[in-house]
C-alpha cells in the first residue's frame, strides 16, 4: 500500500466525513489523521474500497469514543458554537453560514446511529458497509436510513431550511 496514493485518495473524503459527523474541525482533522496512522501502522491490506471502508469505520468509532460522554460533546459545542459569520461579510456568505449552522444543528439533534448512517450513506457506502460500521443487520439499513433521512429533514424544516 503506497502512502501517498492512499493518502491522496482517502484523506480528503475522510476528513470531510469526520467533520460532518462531529462538527468540530480540530477533532475531525485529529481523528482522520489518527485513522490514517492506524491504517499504515497496522499495515491493513485490501482493495481500495475495503481500505476506504476500514478508514471510515475506524474514524466513526474514534469519534464515537470521544463523544461517548454526552457532556463532553455539549461542552465542546458550547466552547465552539456554530455561528453565522459576522455581519460585515457579504450577504451570500452570511446566508451560507446560516445554512451551515442549520444543517449542523439538524445533525446534532439526531441520534448518533442515525447520524452515522446518514453520513455514511451520503459518503457513498453500501448498505452492507454501513451495517458493519454501526452494528446493525444489513437488512435493517433501509428502514433505519429512511427514518434517519426523515428525522434530518424534519429537524431541518423546523429550523426553517426546506431540504
Amino acid at each position, binding site marked *: 500500500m503506497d502512502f501517498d496514493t492512499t493518502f491522496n485518495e482517502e484523506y480528503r473524503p475522510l476528513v470531510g466525513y469526520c467533520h460532518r459527523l462531529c462538527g468540530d474541525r480540530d477533532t475531525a482533522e485529529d481523528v482522520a489523521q489518527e485513522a490514517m496512522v492506524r491504517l499504515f501502522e497496522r499495515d491493513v491490506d485490501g482493495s481500495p474500497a475495503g481500505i476506504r471502508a476500514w478508514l471510515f469505520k*475506524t474514524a466513526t468509532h474514534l469519534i464515537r469514543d470521544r463523544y461517548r460522554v454526552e457532556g463532553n460533546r455539549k461542552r465542546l459545542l458550547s466552547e465552539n458554537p456554530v455561528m453565522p459569520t459576522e455581519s460585515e461579510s457579504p450577504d451570500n456568505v452570511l446566508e451560507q453560514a446560516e445554512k451551515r449552522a442549520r444543517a449542523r444543528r439538524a445533525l446534532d439533534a439526531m441520534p448518533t446511529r442515525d447520524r452515522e448512517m446518514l453520513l455514511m450513506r451520503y459518503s457513498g457506502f453500501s448498505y452492507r458497509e454501513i451495517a458493519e460500521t454501526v452494528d446493525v443487520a444489513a437488512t435493517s439499513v433501509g428502514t433505519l436510513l429512511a427514518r434517519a433521512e426523515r428525522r434530518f429533514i424534519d429537524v431541518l424544516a423546523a429550523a426553517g431550511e426546506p431540504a
Partner: protein
Amino acid sequence: MTYLTDANHLTERVIVELRDNTPVVADARVHLDGCDICQTALAASEDRAADIVSTLTDLDEHFDVESAREAVRARLAQREPAAKPVSDRGLRTSFWTLGRAATFLLVTTGALSALPGSPLREFLIGREAQAPEPSALPPGESAAPVGMRMVVEGGAVDVELQQVPSGTSIEVRWLSGQAVTVLAATGSSFTSAQGLVRATITGGPVTIELPKSASEVSLAVNGRMYLRRTAGEETLSGPVDAQDVDRVLFIVP
C-alpha cells in the same frame, strides 16, 4: 418482511432501497413498474436525497491536505518504537487497563488449575506495560495481577467468566498470534480444557486477549453471551461501553 404497506404500496424502506440500487425482491420492481403512486414516491425520494446531498455539502470546509500528510508522517515516525514487541513472546499490544507500572509480573495463584488434557502452555507472563489510556478504567478498579494464557489449538476457543461482579469492566482485544489470555483481579481462579478457558472472577478490570486467527470464538459472562465471532463475522450481544477496531469494552451490569 413484506415489501407492501397495508394500502398495497411499496414501503418506505423498499423505496429507499430501490433509490439506492440495493437488491430488493423482484416482486417489488414488478409492483413499481405498474404503480404510479410508488413511482412518484421514488421520484420524491430521489429529490430528497439530492436535497440532503446539497445540505450536507454546505457543511464542507477546506482542509489542508499537505499539512495533514506531514502530520500523519510525523505520528507514524513517533510511534515506530512503540510498535515493536514489548516482550520476547511477541505480544505487542499495550494493556491500557493495567495501570501505570513500567513492568509487572503476572502471578498466578494457587487457585489456578488445569483440567486433564489441557493445552495450557504458559501460566506466567512477564510483560511491560505501556502508557495507559487513563479514561478507559471506571474509577475504583485496580490493576489485575492474575491470569492465564493458553495456546488455541484447532482454531476455536470459548471463554466463560463466572461470578463477575456488577460494574466490572471487561476489555477484549484482538491480537495476532494463537494465544488467548485472560487477566483479572487477585483471587480470581482459572481452569482450562481443549478450546475452553473458564474463570471465576473476584473483581476487575478483566482483560482478555483473543487471537484474530481463531476460526470461532465466544465470550460468555455470568451465563450470558457477550461476544461471538464465527468465520470473521463478529456479533456483540453484551453491554458494550466502548468499541474500537480491535478492542471492545464491556461493563457488566
